[in-house]
């Protein structure tokens, strides 16, 4: 899922400093699961902003709503009537949600409450880790199911580099060296010979470097 985290509340308050009434929109998708922008977080943020503004003698009126998914324009349409009389919309979705809202409500000031961080999972409750760099050309079959693109700090395809020591990456003793993990797993699978093959340069045009991407499935398109 997409992992996001709330921005510092001061920054969010700053974005809506000149507004009297705002709509805070949570999302029931990924950000609910990663506890950044679900119903609860939306209400907490609304209360915190209200308190903050009352302390400044400049009360803020808030309306809250949680969309089923902000990454689907059809779910955004469901909030049309809530939007009318607010000065701004604060989205607690990933960047996709913020953009769809901004697209639909041209004349509204739309701001992000979250920093969209990465694609990952949660190993234990409260800890999320990055697992995929969305490279558009998955190589996990060549690396024992461990992603070298995002879990190696240098995205090395023929690792490990000379900074790998005691299982950790050169950037931090808290970061596992992906290539140590790949080595261990390939060894356990009896496939170390695979690691002797020189992996060719990656085609980054399938990643963000090729410009904005689109995925199309003609067979499921309507009309």
């Amino acid at each position, binding site marked *: 899922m997409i992992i996001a985290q709330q921005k510092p509340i001061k920054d969010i308050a700053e974005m809506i400093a000149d507004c009297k009434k705002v709509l805070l929109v949570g999302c029931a998708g990924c950000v609910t699961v990663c506890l950044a922008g679900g119903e609860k977080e939306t209400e907490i943020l609304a209360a915190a902003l209200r308190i903050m503004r009352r302390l400044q003698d400049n009360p803020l009126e808030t309306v809250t709503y949680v969309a089923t998914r902000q990454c689907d324009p059809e779910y955004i349409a469901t909030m049309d009537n809530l939007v009318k009389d607010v000065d701004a919309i604060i989205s607690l979705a990933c960047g996709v949600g913020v953009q769809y809202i901004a697209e639909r409500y041209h004349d509204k000031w739309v701001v992000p409450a979250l920093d969209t961080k990465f694609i990952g999972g949660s190993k234990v409750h409260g800890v999320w880790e990055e697992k995929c760099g969305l490279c558009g050309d998955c190589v996990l079959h060549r690396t024992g199911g461990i992603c070298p693109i995002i879990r190696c700090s240098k995205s*090395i395809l023929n690792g490990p580099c000379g900074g*790998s020591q005691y299982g950790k990456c*050169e950037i931090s003793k808290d970061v596992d060296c992906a290539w*140590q993990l790949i080595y261990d797993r390939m060894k356990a699978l009896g496939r170390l010979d695979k690691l002797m093959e020189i992996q060719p340069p990656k085609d980054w045009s399938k990643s963000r470097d090729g410009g904005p991407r689109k995925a199309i499935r003609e067979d499921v398109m309507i009309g």
Partner: protein
Amino acid sequence: MKTESKLQKLLDSGHFAVTAEIGPPKHASAHGIRHHAHMLKNYVDATNITDCQTAIVRLSSIAAAVHIRDCGLEPIVQMTCRDRNRIAIQSDLLGAYSLGIRNLLCLSGDHQKFGNEPSAKNVYDIDSIQLIYLMRRMRDEKLFFSGEPIKEHEPRFFIGAVANPFADPFEFRVARLEKKVEAGAEFIQTQCIFDMERFERFMEMVRERGIHERVHILAGVTPLKSWRAAKYLQTSVSGMIVPDDIVERLKKAEDPKREGIEICIEQIKHIRNIPGVHGVHIMAIAWEEVVPEIVERSGLYPRPKVE
């Protein structure tokens, strides 16, 4: 495949090579590096020019190499994969060759996290092994990285790589070295050696695989100025092993700098007797002036002459 590299001629003719390292300055004057080049030129066969080592912004490696060549010392340009994509790497290396640079060392480069631009974006378009492979192919098959032919004047570098016997997983270090040789590396410089026993085990594995017959291995050494410097390398640099007895020896020494030089000379004398080692690479970090003495007292002076 012959290049115009003097270092290659020396190594291919069986001489025990001596290389050193010059770190370009954090300013725009070549005065200091030219001074170092003059100081070193009769004592070493070639010198590496680091490429923003530890991700600290410094005068460009290629520009520094031109100054050094100007002073009569053969440069080895280091090229990391951290800061340039394949377009910039090719372009810079075509330029470097046109300026008379003949030796190239390919590395991944230290992550920018500990440098002076930690908020920079890193590149890592290709990795060091791919860089070796592509530069070798550029020279031998006259192809750009993309596969497009180079009609004329392809750059003909003597291509080197690094190996770190002190990084993990240890068992894979020799295999990865072999992978670099497969990719096309013709000389190897190792990370600085302090744990001689581990290096010997590494070389044993190298010999078992016959890698020393396919590539020239230059063993890296670093003279230490103080026990604090040793301790720093021991605890704060990932991929280094510094045994406690070296730290202790420097701690007990009356003149630690002297002691650092003595240790380095002992190491070189020892390394010369390890089968399969074809040279020594002296990395006197910000202490270039001690290199002549180390070379001389290690019995490596005068340096052989080649055409």
